C-alpha cells in the first residue's frame, strides 16, 4: 500500500493519555529540574486539586489559596466570595517555582532572550543590515557590523562592504547566530562574530515548535553516527529552527590543533574566503542517510510531544538504530516513529 489512510480518531484528552503512561512521562520531563516540586506536595492539594503539569485554559481558576504568588500567564481576580484568586490567562501547564505559580503555554511563539543561540533565515537585505526570520513575533536584525567580515575581525568596515552586502548573506540564506541585544519592543539584534556562528551549509533544515527545544548549556551538538555516516552536527536553535549537517572541523577547533603555528589573524584570513560560500562540501550518501534519520527522530519526538535535548536525541537515534530502521523502512512504516519514541523513553527510564 503506497498510502496510509487513517480514519479520524476522537480527541483524547490529557487524562486518557496519562493512564497509558505516555502523559506521565511527559510530566516528568516537564518538571525535572524544578527543585521546589517534591517538597511542596502538601501545598499541591491546596490548589484545589490542580497539580503541576495539569492543563488549564484561560479564565480557569488556578488557586484561591493566598500563599501563592502570581507568575507569568496568570492574573489576579476576585472570586464570588470576595477572595483573591489566581486565574490562568493562557492555555498551558501549571508550573511552580517555590511559591510562584506560572503557566507555560502549550504553544507559543519564540520570545528572544539575550544569549540565545538561534537559527534564522534572511528575509530581506537592507543597506547596512539584514532582516532575519527567527520565528519570533518581530523579525530580528543583523547589522553588517555584527558579522565576521572577510579579512578578519581587525579589518575596518568600508563602504565597499555595504555594496557587497548581498555576497555575505542574501534572501533565503540560513545562519546560526546569537541574540546580542533586545530593544524595547522585544525585537532581537543578532551577531555572528564568532567562528561558531555564520552561514549554514551541508545539511537540512527543519522547524519545530519553539517550546519543544529544551534550553541547554550548548545548543550545538556533534553526534557520532553509525553506518559509516561519520559525525553529524545538530544546531538546535532555541527558536525551534533546527539545522542538521555534516560535521565540519570548525575553524576554532582547527586552530586548537595547530594553534602554535597559525596566528589568529592568519586564521581569520584563511577562514574569510570560505565562510560566506554557498557551495556544499562533498557529502557521502551514508552521511546523508544518517542526517535524514536524525531528522526523522526529531520529527517523531516532536509528534509524541517529547521535548528535544541532547539526551533524548541520542536515545532517539539509538532507538532508531535498534529498531533496525535502515534504508527506507522509516518511510514505508508509519508507526516506526511511535515505536522509536517509546523505545527511547524506555531506555531513558532505565538509566
Amino acid at each position: 500500500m503506497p498510502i496510509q489512510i487513517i480514519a479520524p480518531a476522537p480527541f483524547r484528552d490529557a487524562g486518557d493519555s496519562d493512564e497509558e503512561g505516555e502523559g506521565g512521562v511527559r510530566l516528568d520531563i516537564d518538571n525535572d529540574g524544578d527543585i521546589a516540586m517534591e517538597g511542596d506536595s502538601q501545598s499541591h492539594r491546596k490548589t484545589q486539586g490542580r497539580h503541576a503539569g495539569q492543563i488549564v485554559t484561560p479564565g480557569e481558576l488556578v488557586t484561591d489559596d493566598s500563599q501563592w504568588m502570581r507568575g507569568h500567564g496568570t492574573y489576579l481576580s476576585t472570586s464570588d466570595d470576595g477572595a483573591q484568586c489566581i486565574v490562568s490567562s493562557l492555555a498551558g501547564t501549571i508550573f511552580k517555582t517555590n511559591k510562584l505559580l506560572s503557566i507555560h503555554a502549550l504553544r507559543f511563539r519564540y520570545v528572544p532572550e539575550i544569549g540565545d543561540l538561534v537559527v534564522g533565515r534572511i528575509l530581506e537585505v537592507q543597506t547596512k543590515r539584514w532582516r532575519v526570520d527567527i520565528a519570533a513575533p518581530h523579525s530580528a536584525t543583523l547589522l553588517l557590523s555584527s558579522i565576521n567580515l572577510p579579512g578578519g575581525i581587525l579589518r575596518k568596515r568600508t563602504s565597499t562592504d555595504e555594496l557587497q552586502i548581498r555576497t555575505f548573506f542574501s534572501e533565503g540564506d540560513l545562519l546560526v547566530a546569537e541574540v546580542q541585544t533586545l530593544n524595547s519592543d522585544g525585537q532581537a539584534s543578532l551577531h555572528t562574530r564568532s567562528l561558531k556562528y555564520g552561514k549554514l551549509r551541508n545539511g537540512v533544515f527543519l522547524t519545530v515548535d519553539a517550546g519543544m527545544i529544551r534550553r541547554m548549556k550548548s545548543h550545538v551538538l556533534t553526534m557520532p553516527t553509525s553506518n559509516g555516516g561519520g559525525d553529524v552536527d545538530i544546531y538546535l536553535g532555541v527558536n525551534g529552527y533546527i539545522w542538521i549537517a555534516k560535521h565540519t572541523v570548525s575553524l576554532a577547533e582547527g586552530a586548537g590543533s595547530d594553534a602554535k603555528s597559525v596566528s589568529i589573524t592568519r586564521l581569520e584570513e584563511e577562514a574569510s574566503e570560505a565562510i560566506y560560500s554557498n557551495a556544499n562540501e562533498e557529502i557521502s550518501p551514508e552521511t546523508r542517510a544518517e542526517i535524514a534519520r536524525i531528522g526523522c527522530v526529531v520529527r517523531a519526538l516532536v509528534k509524541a510531544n517529547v521535548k528535544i535535548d541532547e539526551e533524548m536525541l541520542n536515545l532517539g537515534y539509538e532507538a532508531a538504530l535498534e529498531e533496525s530502521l535502515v534504508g527506507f523502512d522509516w518511510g514505508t512504516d508509519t508507526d516506526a516513529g511511535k515505536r522509536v519514541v517509546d523505545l527511547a523513553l524506555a531506555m531513558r527510564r532505565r538509566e
Partner: protein
Amino acid sequence: MTSALVVPGQPLGPAHAYVPGSGVHVFNGQIVSSLVGQVVTTASTSTSASASTLTSTPPTISVVKPSVAADEEGSSATLLPDVNSEVLCRVTRINARQATVAVFVVNGRVCGDDFQGVIRVQDVRQTEVDRVRIFTSFRPGDIVRAKVISLGDQSNYYLSTAHNSLGVVMANSEAGDPMYPINWREMKSSRTGVVEERKVAKPF
C-alpha cells in the same frame, strides 16, 4: 565576419572550438544561440606577448541582433544597467545622505523606463569624501553622468560620480536659467551670472 541568421536553440558549433560570447549559451557540449541574429566570430584578441603560452585561445563566437534604425523605438529592448555601466540620470530628490535619481540613458542608449538609482554622499567624489555635502553637489532636475557601482537593493541601483568625467552635465539655476560650468565645483547662470555649487563633470 557575419553570416546568416540564426534562431534561439540553433547549434553553432562544438563548445571546445569557441569561447562563448554574448547571445549564446552552452548546451550538451554545443554552443547554442540564444537570440535571433547574426553569428559573429572574432579571433582571439590575445597579443603576441601571450605567444609564450603556446595554447592558442579559440575564437569568440557571439550572436548579435542587428540594431534597428534609430527612429524605431523599442530597439533599446534588453537594456539594463550593470556594474560599470555609464549612465545619464536626472536628480529627483535629495537629502543629506544621498541623491535619488532616475536613470534614463544606459551606455549611450535611451531606455524605455526609468531605473531608480541613488548617489550616496560618500560616492559623490573621490577625495575629501568627508567634506562632501549633497546639497552643494546636486539639485533636483540636474542631469548627471554617473557610473553604476552596484545593483543595490530591490529598488535602487547604486551610482557613483567619483571621477573627473562624472558629475552634473546640465543644470538650471534656482531661477530656472541654464547654467554652464566654470570650474570643477561651480556653474554659472547664463542670464543672471549667479554662481551655484555643483559636482561638475569635466567637459570633454
